[in-house]
């Protein structure tokens, strides 16, 4: 049990954060508040991460006209670079998960620890983290 240094968002977490009408919107803002309050006490304490393939899946265009302030909440892109793509490809091959879930898994492996992930698919993420041997706190959206 440790405060996470990295918090990774999956598709449903992103959707809940971006859509004020989403039933879990306020709950997601509470999670962002945790990061914001800890970062004010100790700058850089918590990094919020969104795998870029998750952003594609969720249709999150940071440059969309009229993007709300919540759209720029310092949730940083975790890109699908060479190393991450290799890791994600192995996960997809071994576990037959979606591209986005494989990318989430690769980001979990690479992120600063301790790491937490907010997801609508707790069982799959638990399976991915277990396969990777990554100790991650898996939080349901």
């Amino acid at each position, binding site marked *: 049990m440790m405060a996470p240094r990295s918090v990774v968002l999956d598709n449903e977490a992103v959707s809940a954060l971006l859509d004020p009408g989403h039933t879990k919107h*306020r709950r997601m803002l*509470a999670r962002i508040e945790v990061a914001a309050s800890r970062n*004010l006490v100790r700058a850089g304490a918590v990094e919020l991460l969104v795998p870029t393939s998750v952003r594609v899946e969720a249709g999150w265009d940071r440059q969309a006209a009229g993007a709300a302030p919540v759209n720029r909440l310092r949730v940083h892109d975790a890109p699908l670079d060479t190393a991450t793509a290799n890791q994600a490809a192995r996960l997809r091959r071994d576990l037959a998960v979606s591209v986005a879930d494989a990318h989430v898994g690769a980001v979990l492996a690479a992120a600063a620890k301790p790491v937490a992930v907010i997801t609508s698919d707790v069982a799959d993420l638990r399976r991915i983290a277990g396969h990777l041997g990554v100790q991650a706190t898996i939080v349901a959206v």
Partner: protein
Amino acid sequence: MPADDALGRLLTLLDGSAEGTAGTSVRLPANLREAATVAVDMGYALSAAELTVKGLHDVLEAVAQRALLDQHYKRHPQDRPSLAEVAQAAAELDGDPVAEEPALIQEAAALVEERETPGLARPDTVVMIANLLRWSRSA
């Protein structure tokens, strides 16, 4: 500059590329300056300037994050989570077993809000008190 314009400018600058530098004169406390030199000598940083920039960047990111949330709540006050909700989120993200007892977290949040200025109470304090309540009642 109006607050919304200032925040927009801050975000644009933070999101911009790091091309170009500006010379500036900053008086650093002597102990921090020497500590930075030691950290560089130990191989944990490239330069004292890099450490200074990283520190400044992280603080500005935290300020922007807070300001964005405040701006969002100004427009959508119903979206502002309560202290208990934020504490619940903190316990969940930390994997703290007290997350399974939301009633304790709500009780702890009420205790903290009674004694502190609203808005300044920190969610981690609530989680700690919830754990104390849990411990005292199981003892």
